């Protein structure tokens, strides 16, 4: 790797953190999105309200604020809870955990809508064919519905992931050593802002391109059998 005044390795380490943060947030967000969609389509009204409150709040707040609120708020909340149990030491929520929570919540809120649309697009007959065979609800979801939902949701989820990937840069503000923060550190020590910001930009772009290739491959794989032959 290019030396970059000795900051090349640092930037690469930052890239690793960025990727880890993005993947962890994606995992959390996918689960939240599926749960959110299931809740929004539920026949139980309070679940629907809960999901609507969730998506409305999260989508209504700038991501940067979500990161800050989670980072500073989580410490306060956790310490309040811990003190109920007689534990009064300072609890710190690390920037990584806060970042995963904030970005996962954000991804989940948008993914809720993507999954909801996908779930609704599966014809009733697909459910009924499984039900009529005596398949239980869980197995039906896992074997019949989810693979089809996945195919429909993939393009939308891919887009959300690209947004998520770039939003990871926001977590640098609470001290996570990602690409963005490493670039900032390099800039303040070398006074070469263009070089390092441009390098960071190229790194994000490369990650984005890789993601797009992976998503395209997944889409192709998931749509086997879907085209008329």
């Amino acid at each position, binding site marked *: 790797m290019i030396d970059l005044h000795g900051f090349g390795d640092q930037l690469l380490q930052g890239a690793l953190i960025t990727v880890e943060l993005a993947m962890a947030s994606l995992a959390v967000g996918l689960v939240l999105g599926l749960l959110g969609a299931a809740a929004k389509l539920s026949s139980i009204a309070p679940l629907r309200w809960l999901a609507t409150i969730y998506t409305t709040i999260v989508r209504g707040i700038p991501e940067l604020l979500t990161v800050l609120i989670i980072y500073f708020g989580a410490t306060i909340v956790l310490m309040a809870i811990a003190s109920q149990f007689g534990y009064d030491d300072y609890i710190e929520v690390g920037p990584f955990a806060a970042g995963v929570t904030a970005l996962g919540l954000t991804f989940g809120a948008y993914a809720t809508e993507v999954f909801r649309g996908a779930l609704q697009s599966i*014809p009733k*007959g*697909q459910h*009924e*064919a*499984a*039900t*009529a*065979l*005596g*398949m*239980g609800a869980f*197995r039906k979801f896992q*074997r*019949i519905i989810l*693979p*089809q939902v996945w*195919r429909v949701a993939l393009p939308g989820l891919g887009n959300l992931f690209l947004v998520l990937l770039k939003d990871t840069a926001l977590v640098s503000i609470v001290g996570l050593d990602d690409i963005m923060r490493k670039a900032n550190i390099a800039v303040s020590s070398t006074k070469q802002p263009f070089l390092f910001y441009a390098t960071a930009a190229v790194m994000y772009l490369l990650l984005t391109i890789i993601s797009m290739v992976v998503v395209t491959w997944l889409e192709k794989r*998931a749509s*086997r*059998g*879907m*085209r*008329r*032959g």
Partner: protein
Amino acid sequence: MSKAPALELIDIHKTFTDVEVLKGISLKAYDGDVISILGSSGSGKSTFLRCINLLENPTKGEIIFNGESLKLASSGRDLAAADMKQLTKMRQQIGFVFQSFNLWPHMTVLQNVMEGPAHVLKRPKQEVMDYAEHLLNKVGIADKKHMYPNQLSGGQQQRVAIARTLAMDPQVILFDEPTSALDPELVGEVLGVMRKLAEEGRTMLIVTHEMSFAKEVSSEVVFLHKGVVEEKGTPDKVFNSPDSERCRAFLSSTY
């Protein structure tokens, strides 16, 4: 016959919002019976069939399968299964063939047929595969087992759907207008398969508009009108000398 019926429906009612679509239908199917259910569009044939395995919850009535009454409990205005285990077990033994096939598009033909026995009945994989291939052979689709449903014609898809149902070794098979979604030239191949099943002595309830088929294969024909059984009897009786004026009018308009 002194034996108990394989399937007995007693006084099935169904109300959608404020329309009573089924107004008390009773039916008995003994092993080996092939019962065709006829009637004009909207008379409640599909709804009745769907009430049997609770794809639709009846508003009132009793379902007895193999002498065992399906436990039902009130759920709003309708009745719902009170014992999901019992319902699931019953559904595994009552096949259902849909008008629109409802094959799973993300699975190959072979996977569609194997899904039930492999993942619901949890039979050994090799045994399931051999049986699935045997059934695909029987419905004449063996050469297409690795294709996806969307690559097949409607008639081929419906034959796969029949194989998928047969793979569960059902005791009774319900057919809900199995040829209504097909182009006319593809109807024959599906009826051919069904005829073969009837000859094997399978117990079948068939909602259909194929009058000559119904006349030929049925042991009993039921004519529904506005949610009630208007006429029932042997094919000869219903087709040639029905008591009901409406049945006569219906048959002369369609057959």
